């Protein structure tokens, strides 16, 4: 029976867009490949894994190491074939497109092997800075505590490399995720409102303002509406010393899922 099926598969091959893998590592690398990978991910994966790789009913992809394997080849096979017996379906795409998706998926997390480690930083000092002088906690949550304007940092140690954290602190505007786009608007009555965009359509824009209120605005009734590429997060280059930034890196690297597992349950 199995042979018959294989034969059928062979005969069908020339006309099907199957994704027999011909590479061990990802051959895609250009900006265009990345953009296309992102587009395909949005269509095929985003609904379950979230555009940030961190929300949704699929597994969390914003992590440094995967249960089903970290190598390019292992991940290709997983994305193509899915995980039988689970909701992870697999995709029917050409080989190059799957590599492009993987190129995008890799940005969720640090490259496997590179680890988020304390370096020269002091974890305790970093923790103090996070809630104290740095006022990071005003905008970020860790566990149950914190503000809602920025992304959750409870698993920062699995989501970022030290370099990504440094960059986020020094040049926050360089890479602002869709979900945290900044909006600045002036209402008909002259009120100035600043916040992050939750949703937008032809008529309305929905934001979380600086005071964390969820608000809706009729776009046609605004005096002005800007969505600058800046981040609501301040650039910390002038606010913190280099050593302090290293303390924060050290602290954030310790925030991992396994840390939580010892918690309330």
């Amino acid at each position: 029976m199995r042979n018959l099926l294989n034969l059928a598969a062979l005969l069908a091959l020339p006309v099907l867009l199957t994704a027999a893998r011909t590479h061990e590592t990802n051959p895609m690398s250009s900006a265009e490949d990345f953009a296309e990978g992102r587009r395909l991910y949005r269509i095929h994966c985003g609904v379950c894994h979230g555009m940030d790789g961190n929300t949704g009913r699929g597994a969390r992809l914003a992590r440094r190491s995967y249960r089903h394997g970290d190598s390019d080849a292992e991940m290709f096979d997983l994305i193509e074939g899915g995980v039988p017996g689970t909701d992870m379906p697999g995709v029917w795409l050409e080989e190059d497109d799957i590599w492009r998706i993987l190129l995008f998926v890799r940005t969720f997390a640090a490259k496997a092997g590179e680890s988020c480690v304390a370096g020269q930083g002091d974890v305790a000092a970093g923790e103090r800075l996070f809630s104290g002088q740095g006022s990071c906690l005003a905008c970020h949550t860790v566990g149950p505590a914190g503000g809602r304007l920025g992304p959750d940092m409870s698993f920062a140690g699995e989501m970022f490399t030290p370099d990504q954290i440094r960059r986020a602190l020094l040049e926050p505007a360089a890479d602002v995720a869709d979900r945290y786009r900044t909006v600045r608007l002036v209402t008909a009555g002259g009120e100035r409102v600043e916040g992050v965009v939750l949703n937008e359509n032809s008529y309305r824009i929905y934001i979380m303002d600086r005071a964390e209120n969820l608000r809706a605005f009729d776009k046609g009734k605004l005096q002005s509406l800007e969505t600058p590429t800046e981040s609501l997060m301040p650039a910390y280059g002038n606010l913190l010393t280099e050593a302090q930034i290293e303390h924060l890196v050290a602290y954030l690297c310790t925030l991992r899922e396994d840390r939580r597992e010892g918690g309330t349950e």
Partner: protein
Amino acid sequence: MRLRTPFAILASALLCAAALPAEVTLQDLLDDPRVGADWLNYHGGYAGHRHSLLDQIDRSNVESLRLEWAFQERISEKFEVTPLVHEGIMYITVPPGDVYALDAETGARLWRYSRRLPSKLIACCGLVNRGLAILGDRLFMATLDAYTIALDSKTGRLLWETQLIDYSLGYSGTHAPLVVKDMVMVGTAGGEYGIRGFIDAFDVETGERRWRFYTVPGPGEFGRETWAGDSWKTGGASIWITPSYDPELDLVYWGVGNPGPDWNGDVRLGDNLFSDSVVALEADTGTRRWHFQFTPHDVHDWDATQVMVLLDKEYRGVERKLLVTANRNGFIYLLDRQTGEFLRATQFVKQTWAVGISEDGRPIRRPGMEPSAEGIEVFPTVAGGTNWMSPAYSPDTGMLYVSCREGSSMYYKGDTEYRPGTRYWGSMFVNEPTMHNWWGAVRAFDPISADLIWEHKLFQPAWAGLLSTAGGLVFAGTSDGFFKALDSGSGEELWRINVGGTVQASPMTFEVAGRQMVAVAAGGSLFAFALP
């Protein structure tokens, strides 16, 4: 002027610079729905009335009611949610495990939470969820993998999750939780899988368990002797509808599901407490104050998971705290909710299993109506004279509105063996031979005498609940895809729309930006209606 939209937050923020984000308080929950604009509890209030004081939409203008917005998702499951609305934001669950915050004015999405669910969930009747509870800036949900979870109402972020029990044994959570004081309460579904049902209360802040009440008593507990042998271990008695609550008596009224196995009672001789009962639990401790069993030793799958409607009314010349409920077994019951005393029971659909109800509230059974190997036809159907869909009670008309199901099923009995996580049914029911005689009706009753006041016939029995409003209207959904408004005084149909999918949810109403809207889930969509 009542500002309740996100703009209201803006307005108040302008007035006093330090305005706190508006959170749902315990007082709001107690007031609801007397305040009107919001809808903060599955039933629209603790008393289970599903009645709103909003009256912008009324008998005179309802004919111009029109679709305001729709929300669609890729839903292949039954969409059974009753939304909550607070300050212009609507919160819904979408099966199997998603939660959305929507702009109540336009239906646009503000955030989504998706639960990561195991792939082999065990649920008899669809991967459904009926909604949320809210307190402060937190939402609470019972999940199909048998957890209670708390989410941040502003971001959808998971704040805590506490496991009820291992879902793979057949347990799940499907009903909208109930918040009482600083606790959130949830019971487990799974009555078709030989579970042992229970109700848990959790600390809203931490998710820590405060108490548990087993709906099937164990060794040494009251009622253990109502289960032969070890049958209590697999007795079922699930919970899958939100209870009612009396803040003065501080009692929570839970309707409990069928005993297991459903159609073969031989392995569980006895009354099988607290299956098919209402149990009144003290809110702080979960201690049982009283119980009343509608169908002792049930063999027809007649869960008592219908809404417990709490009324303060005169009965035989004395003002009393009452509980009225139209039960799946075909009778409307009137109880004293302070003591559990049985006051009366009246048949409200055709039924052939009982000769009547005796003085003490026990059914007098008609012989030969138990399921058998050859099958026996019994009225009402296995879905009962009514089911989980909400009734409504209007203080204006004083009438109780019930979605009634007429018809019969063929009931079979067979052998069964308990295997964890698999069906524990004791055979089957069959509807095909009898379905031609099925029909439905929205009926208005006097809740005290149970006298029928009016009837609005439906082509098929409905799975949709009812909503009553101060505008003199009763909203109803149908299985053939209509959503309609009836005159609450006469039952006359005043408005209808084809929503293009079966309505299997109970409607609700709210006010946003000065306009009343009525919302209902149907097919794979949620619809909101308003006047032009």
